[in-house]
């Protein structure tokens, strides 16, 4: 059902775990299936210096978490915010149609963690619907 890239990230998840003194934390739940994902960020010089995830969910959710954290590590916070679930799915070389929604969880958890970081920095949280970002894929 899943391709090899997905199975690889599922079986050998990158960046799994928690960060004790995270600069930003975001937890989101999936209304469709009830799954939960949590993202921890360490930010240095406006750059994602470290990122970890915890996921309660299916293989696609775990693989998406792993891939999404890989994709934002070392990126600026703004670049990380611009990561779409579509890009995660593409990096995973595709997900079954009924599993595309699981990747949305990763995008949302990253957004929640970034806004948590911004609020802690005394900044305005960003709006979820920025005009400059690519469309979502559900």
């Amino acid at each position, binding site marked *: 059902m899943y391709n090899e890239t997905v199975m690889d990230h599922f079986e050998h998840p990158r960046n*799994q775990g928690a960060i004790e003194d995270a600069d930003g934390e975001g937890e989101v739940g999936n209304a469709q299936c009830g799954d939960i994902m949590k993202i921890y960020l360490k930010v240095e010089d406006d750059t994602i210096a470290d990122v970890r995830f915890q996921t*309660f969910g299916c*293989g696609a959710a775990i693989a998406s978490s792993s891939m999404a954290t890989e994709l934002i590590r070392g990126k600026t916070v703004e670049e990380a915010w611009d990561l779409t679930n579509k890009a995660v799915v593409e990096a995973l070389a595709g997900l079954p149609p009924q599993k595309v929604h699981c990747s949305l969880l990763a995008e949302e958890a990253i957004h929640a963690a970034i806004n948590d970081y911004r609020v802690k920095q005394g900044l305005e949280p960003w709006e979820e619907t920025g005009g400059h970002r690519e469309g979502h894929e559900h």
Partner: protein
Amino acid sequence: MDHAATTATRPEVAAAMVPYMTGHFGNPSSLYDLARVSREAVAAAREQVAAAIGAEPKQIYFTSGGTESDNWALKGVAFARKAKGNHIITSAVEHHAISHTCVWLEKQGFSVTYLPVDRYGMVDPAAVEAAITPETILVSVMMANNEIGTIMPVAEIGAVARKHGVLFHTDAVQAVGHIPIDVRAQNIDLLSLSGHKFRGPKGTGALYIGPGVRLDPLMHGGAQERGRRAGTENVPGIVGMGMALELATAEMEENTRRITALRDRLTAGLLSIPETYLNGHPERRLPNNVNVVFAYIEGESILLMLNRRGIAASTGSACSTTSLEPSHVLMACGLPHEVVHGSLRLTLGEQTTEADVDYVISAVMEIVQRLRDMSPLTPA
């Protein structure tokens, strides 16, 4: 470890089917004899199936599987008796072959009561009685649940139905070939069974239709099966199913003893994992069924990891289904959504060994640990 989903056909059964496919019987040009051989083989299979459930051969009608038998029983009775009433009673934990058929019948103007179950997945016969109205034409409650293995009080439910002049159907797909059945003693009017659940061929099944039960055909057409189920008979399949069921019945006592012991070993091993709970009835359950729930983790990821270790299993997690609905059976037992997520069903087969069981226990222990480490829900 997923023998409730399907079993491989016994090699001797597959071998016995082949001649009925290719039609090589003695002199192949003697087609007259060929037809007789097929007819006699089908009659013998009908006797084998009847004997396994305490029925008469003429009460057995061959179908293409459990799904067809279920659809036929419900739609057949509903359409045949709609002048008498439009109310059907079933349970909240039926297989989709029953529940989805009921939903469709509701669209056709029938009214359906889905009876709740207790935490073990049992229907209360008194609740059946309370639900019966003058409009009620049929009660359908399964004999044994496919997810949690709970065995229903079928005889008592049948007695209630009979007392009120209502027909009683039971989906015995998980029970036939695994536990003793007697349609007469258990007050059953209609019973569904499926060949591939007892090491017979896929695409075979039967419906038992008791004396005096009228129902419309689901398959209209030719006069096969005494005019009640049209379609060219799947002779090899019928032969294979009869043989597999006869063997399963003969070996049942011995198998039940052995498999129950393995089941209990597996259950004990899994329950030794902290925050793990048994689903279904602790005693009144199928000899081959283990269903446990592990807090904090999700089922599809357990299955994927098991699969990588060569172990097939099943879960009630929403994530494992295309509809993203969690198991209606576990929900009906009162389990909260997030708990249903972490459920795992393992079902044993005749070839399962103690070594297999021990391997599964250690694999599950390791997997549960890995996934709990990954879960945001696990307490620190």
